[in-house]
């Protein structure tokens, strides 16, 4: 019997004490390790997002191109006003709000990201647009290479972005089957003519990737976007910078475009108030009159309801600004 001997009671007590104390110490260490590791992971996850955000900020100061080397394969997401890393259902999912207007694929799973920044002016500077692309997302521009408009538009896309332009009559979907099947996202953009619609391309390329088709109507500044399910969405664009955005973001365009238009409204409000204030300081009546006209035009511009109105007011404000410059008056922008 254990109880019968004093030495055995001693031993039993030591064991019990050892087990209880050991369990407490072990729990403490496990908890500590967990807190420490999750803290480290939180810092690391946010650091990646902050690094990407800071790099975009630094690049956005000027127009240009760059290739970000993330030093490892990361799964980055660009969802309207959020930058995310990791999978949304996974443990290592982090997100960071951003003020930047980023047009790109929804997900980028690559070490390298090609980035192009361009100022959006309408007619005064509104914002810098960021266009993103990785090697998993491929884009083809199909249009008439004889058209000056199409050649100008495609010619401005930096070669680093890897977006080829193909003559409509020479486009054969079969030539791009292997490229399409190796992509995560494959976007075909038609300008004014649609030789092969979404369903034809889908049957050619299969279901290996997200196929999107965009049909641009340049005369109307509108486009039809067919997403990876073939669902159609009609969108408009304001200036070429926004059309580039549509090409790089595809079916995710609308949300980013809305953010850009909100910013357009904010900037137009600032310019309207700026002109009002300058008017109060101006002594020359001819300048006051011109500034007053410009102020009214800016108010109308901000309240434009249609794209036609937007383009009309855009041209008028541009002309008014030139007139103010010629008369040696303070200008709108």
């Amino acid at each position, binding site marked *: 019997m254990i109880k019968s001997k004093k030495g055995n009671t001693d031993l039993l007590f030591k064991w019990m004490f050892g087990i209880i104390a050991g369990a407490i110490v072990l729990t403490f260490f496990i908890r*500590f390790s967990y807190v420490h590791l999750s803290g480290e992971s939180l810092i690391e996850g*946010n650091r990646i997002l902050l690094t990407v955000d800071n790099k975009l900020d630094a690049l956005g100061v000027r127009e240009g191109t760059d290739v970000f080397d993330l030093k490892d394969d990361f799964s980055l997401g660009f969802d309207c006003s959020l930058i995310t890393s990791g999978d949304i259902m996974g443990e290592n999912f982090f997100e960071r709000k951003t003020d930047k207007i980023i047009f790109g694929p929804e997900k980028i799973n690559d070490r390298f990201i090609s980035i192009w920044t361009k100022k959006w002016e309408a007619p005064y500077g509104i914002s810098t647009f960021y266009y993103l692309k990785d090697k998993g997302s491929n884009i083809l521009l199909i249009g008439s290479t004889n058209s000056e408009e199409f050649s100008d538009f495609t010619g401005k896309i930096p070669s680093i972005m890897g977006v080829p332009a193909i003559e409509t009559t020479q486009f054969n979907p079969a030539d791009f089957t292997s490229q399409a099947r190796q992509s995560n996202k494959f976007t075909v953009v038609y300008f004014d003519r649609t030789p092969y619609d979404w369903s034809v391309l889908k049957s050619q390329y299969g279901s290996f990737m997200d196929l999107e088709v965009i049909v641009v109507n340049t005369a109307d500044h509108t486009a039809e976007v067919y997403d990876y399910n073939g669902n159609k969405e009609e969108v408009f664009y304001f200036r070429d910078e926004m059309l580039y955005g549509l090409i790089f973001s595809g079916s995710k365009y609308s949300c980013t475009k809305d953010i850009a238009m909100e910013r357009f409204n904010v900037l137009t409000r600032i310019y309207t108030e700026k002109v009002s204030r300058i008017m109060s300081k101006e002594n020359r009546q001819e300048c006051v009159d011109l500034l007053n006209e410009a102020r009214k035009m800016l108010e109308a511009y901000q309240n434009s309801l249609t794209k036609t109105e937007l383009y009309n007011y855009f041209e008028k404000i541009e002309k008014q600004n030139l007139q103010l410059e010629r008369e040696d008056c303070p*200008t709108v922008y």
Partner: protein
Amino acid sequence: MVKKGQVHVSETILVLFVVVIILMMGVTIYFKFSVEKSKTLAEELSEEQATIMLAKAVGLEELSCEGLGCMDTSKFLPFKRVLGEDFGRYKRMFGRKRIVVKELYPIEDSVKEVECDVVKYIQMEYPENCGSWVIYDYNPENEPAAKVSTIVSLYYPEFDEYRVGRLEIEHYGDIRR
């Protein structure tokens, strides 16, 4: 009288107790160092972010001259109004910071720190009656600040005049937005 067996148990408990205390102290100290390291990292990142923000703020469409690399003072008051109406948008852009623009030259010392507002603007003496604009200020936890600054060119379109100024960004060792 204390028996020999009881002395053994007490010794064992004491030794284990001391060992556990030492281990816990070690872990606590390590944890504190770790937290300190994270704070230093956050401060470094905050400074890096503020420095990038300096370049960004000078070129920000809401504050800058059109393509001339200067800051348009006539946009400052309209911007403050927009900021008041939609603070969330700019909180996302600037985070926890204080952004101030100060005129350096030519300005009298007596008005250098006087903040320019709507009342000062409509006075005839403007821009000689004030020399500072608080563009943005968000520090909800009243944290101590570190400062980065750069010299900027200030443009007054009302008078078609350029002056020398300084853009200051105070940051609070925090990268949250």
